[in-house]
């Protein structure tokens, strides 16, 4: 999932494999116990409940009515369900469009439940065929019935090189014949990677095993689109709704107003509520002004919600008397200090880990305690199988993404590795020189690393150019190459470790954590991927620790947090730890 907030994270485009985790729980406990689970990170973000039935249990005390206004800083390029693969539009589509599966929040935990399908899919013996059956009585906003063919058409449409240019790429990798397929308009008419055997049954044919397919079909790429009503590039102006809300007024690049969808049947929907009468999304707003107004909560601001990172000047308010108007929680992104292990030997990598000024860099970057939490692991805590360990770069020096580095110890370690003042180890990296914050962060990093005995060559380039330079495995740098971090697409460690530490990305001309190709790492990835789903989680956790302790290809830095600021009348806002965004389907408005 691509990142839409200010932080620059080298995001997704990963190759996922196997692994769903957590025991399926069939209990239908009431959801939405209120959003105050603050900084605590819950595990098992990936439970499965194939038997969940609608309607979603009522939230105690929730009232109907009102319009929730959602102003935020970025602007979606379009609202085409085949194209959009961003966090903000995923939240909007969760209100209007239903996919085959979806997530529901139960006691602060995310559970995958069937949405348009009757269950979470049936896998064939060899694992290469998945079958989903549609629920009865699902209708579009215009009253026409949803057919299996419509979901097949949408899946095919997500291959279109023009209509779905920004979409995910998993379908290309896993669906049979997907690598070359060009979609329903330009592609092979006889392509059978996804097909409908009748009006109710969808069959996915795979190239190789894809255990996490049920997670993948929760994306808006798998919301039904009737072929007869597809207007190609203009479909984004009014995608046909299947969810509790539908498009009322949409001005591309400016705003979107949603109203109730009369043809949505709550009895078929295990995940969604429809408390507000409508939603009003406003794009491209000024963050500081918006957040200040929402905290003041006058007029419409009392029924507004903003999900941009909280501005540091407002922190005294949200830590003080406006505490109830702020919600934070983990997001799906993990950030690392990336090193090029081909150019920096292990003892020096450890010295960098000892010297690295995490606190100073966060302070200089204006990152507040509300925008990140320090990390000591590669796998974030909300993922099942996360092993909570803290490795040591040197005896007594924990790598936990905290502290300001120890220059003395680092110098000693460099001396032991054969580097000294007369023969310093040179660190080379690119930084963005057309952004004020990046310039300041670089000043801090450079001075602190120099104080720790390194020689630093900091090469300033414009942001657009830096993206290209740090993504080239043959680049001049020896640290801070892409990716800066990784945002998982579904809550399982197999969407984190194989694409970022395995050799595949490197061999395809991309950069990875460490830019390192190692047979033992690849063998371990392969071994874990062969395991059954329940066994994989803990094994990924062990591999995480093994990688950091023995290789240290990248230094664990922090886990990103999602923020929500909302008016006094907005109730039951809770952060979705797999997205770093609030679950809008649970929000209600007090009158």
């Amino acid at each position, binding site marked *: 999932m691509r990142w839409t907030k200010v932080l620059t994270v080298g995001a997704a485009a990963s190759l996922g494999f196997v692994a769903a985790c957590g025991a399926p729980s069939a209990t239908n406990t009431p959801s939405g116990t209120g959003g105050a689970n603050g900084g605590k990170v819950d595990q098992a973000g990936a439970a499965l409940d194939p038997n969940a039935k609608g309607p979603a249990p009522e939230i105690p005390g929730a009232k109907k009515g009102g319009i929730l206004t959602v102003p935020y800083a970025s602007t979606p390029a379009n609202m085409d369900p085949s194209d959009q693969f961003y966090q903000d539009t995923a939240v909007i589509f969760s209100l209007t469009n239903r996919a085959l599966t979806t997530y529901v929040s139960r006691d602060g935990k995310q559970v995958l439940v069937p949405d348009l399908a009757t269950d979470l899919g049936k896998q064939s013996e060899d694992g290469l065929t998945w079958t989903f059956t549609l629920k009865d009585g699902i209708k579009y906003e215009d009253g026409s019935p949803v057919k299996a063919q419509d979901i097949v058409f949408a899946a095919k449409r997500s291959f279109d090189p023009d209509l779905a240019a920004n979409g995910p790429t998993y379908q290309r990798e896993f669906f049979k014949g997907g690598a070359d397929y060009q979609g329903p308009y330009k592609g092979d008419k006889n392509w059978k990677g996804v097909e409908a055997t009748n009006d109710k049954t969808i069959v996915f044919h795979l190239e190789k095993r894809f255990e996490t397919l049920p997670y993948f079909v929760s994306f808006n790429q798998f919301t039904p689109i009737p072929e007869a009503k597809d207007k190609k590039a203009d479909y984004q102006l009014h995608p046909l709704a299947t969810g509790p809300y539908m498009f009322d007024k949409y001005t591309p690049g400016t705003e979107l107003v949603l109203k109730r969808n009369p043809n949505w049947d709550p009895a078929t929907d295990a995940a969604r509520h429809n408390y507000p009468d409508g939603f009003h999304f406003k794009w491209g707003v000024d963050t500081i002004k918006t957040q200040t107004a929402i905290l003041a909560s006058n007029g419409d601001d009392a029924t507004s919600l903003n999900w941009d990172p909280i501005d540091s000047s407002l*922190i005294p308010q949200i830590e003080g008397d406006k505490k109830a108007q702020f919600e934070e929680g983990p997001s799906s992104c993990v950030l690392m200090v990336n090193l090029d292990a081909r150019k920096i030997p292990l003892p020096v990598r450890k010295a960098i880990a000892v010297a690295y000024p995490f606190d100073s860099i966060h*302070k200089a970057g204006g990152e*507040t305690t509300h925008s990140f939490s320090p990390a000591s692991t590669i796998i974030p805590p909300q993922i099942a199988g996360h092993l909570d360990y803290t490795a040591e770069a040197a005896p007594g020096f924990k790598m936990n993404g905290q502290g*300001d580095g120890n220059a003395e110890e680092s110098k000693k370690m460099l001396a032991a590795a054969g580097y000294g003042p007369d023969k310093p180890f040179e660190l080379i990296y690119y930084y963005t020189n057309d952004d*004020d914050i990046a*310039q300041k962060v670089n000043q801090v990093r450079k001075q*602190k690393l120099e104080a720790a005995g390194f020689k630093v060559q900091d090469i300033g380039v*414009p942001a657009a150019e830096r993206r290209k330079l740090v993504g080239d495995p043959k680049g001049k740098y020896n640290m801070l190459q892409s990716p800066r971090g990784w945002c998982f697409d579904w809550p399982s460690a197999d969407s984190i470790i194989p694409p970022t530490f395995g050799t595949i990305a490197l061999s395809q001309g991309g950069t990875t954590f460490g830019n390192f190709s190692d047979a033992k790492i690849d063998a371990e990835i392969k071994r874990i991927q062969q395991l059954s789903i329940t066994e994989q989680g803990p094994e990924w956790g062990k591999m995480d620790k093994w990688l950091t302790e023995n290789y240290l290809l990248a230094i664990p830095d922090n886990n990103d947090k999602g923020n929500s600021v909302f008016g006094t009348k907005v109730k039951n806002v809770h952060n979705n730890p797999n997205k770093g965004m609030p679950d809008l389907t649970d929000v209600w408005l007090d009158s």
Partner: protein
Amino acid sequence: MPEPSAVTLTEESDERASTTAPEHQDVRTGRSPGQVAWARLKRDKVAIICSVIILFFIVVAIFAPLLVSLEAIDPITKAKADPGTVHTELVDFNGLPTVGASSAHWLGVEPRLGRDLFARWAYGARPSLIIGFVAAFASTVLGVVLGLVAGYLGGVADKIISWVIDFFLSLPILLLVLAIIPIMQKRLAAGGDLTPEETSTIRFWVLIVILVVFGWMGLARLVRGEVKSLREREFVQAARAIGVPTRSILFREILPNLVGPIIVSASIAVPAYITYEATLSYLGAGLVEPTASWGRTIADAQNLFATYPLWLWPSVIGLSLLVLALSLLGDSIRDAFDPTSRR
């Protein structure tokens, strides 16, 4: 860039001041216009006050290291303040300073980075003043030379130079400057990789060059007009008739008559250029980290103004006061050189 204003030497607003009789003795003493102006300037209170202010900033800029070293040693960092070193131990996790103004930090420390704000303020006066004065000097020289040549030679040379003047005056300068600076920076780097210090040095000289390139036209046009009329005067004709070389005529006969307008134009250019440097740095097209610059500080500090006003005020006050003093001094100089003003 406002052209260093084409000064109108015929200002008639001073009739009311003509009651002060003693001034008339100036006119009769037979001194040069420069001496007359100097005598007048010395008696102008505004000019004196402005000069003192300007001198203060020049002293601050020149002796910035000395002034900064007068600050006490910080009890937390155990270090003397300097404009570059970051001390993140002096700010909390949300980036706000944990120490206020003290004997170690006369103006407190910078949010997020913990650099000493007095040091950044004192060193920040340097680029402003250097760029202002160097660019004003260079653009004056360029303007005078081209104006002299165009006005005296006339003909094709005049046509070409006048066309160039008109062309440069018609360019949308701010837009052009914003576009040119990164391009020139890239050119000068010649594909090489730049550290921030190199980038800032390049930006510094690029700024001066750009201010000169876009700042000479006003003066050139003024000088050209003056020369055109002086050229036909008797003393020039006489010099020509007895065979004085052209260079001597230009610099010996004509130029001394233009000293007034040139000084006035230069004195008005300095504050204009200082404002330009600050504006461009504020917009992100000027100086970059780690160089201290008032324009950059203002840009950084404005968002935190509500929580930490001490960051913004010194640079705003410094910049405003310096520009105001230079502008008023320029005005006074103009008045002093103006033969029709009798103050």
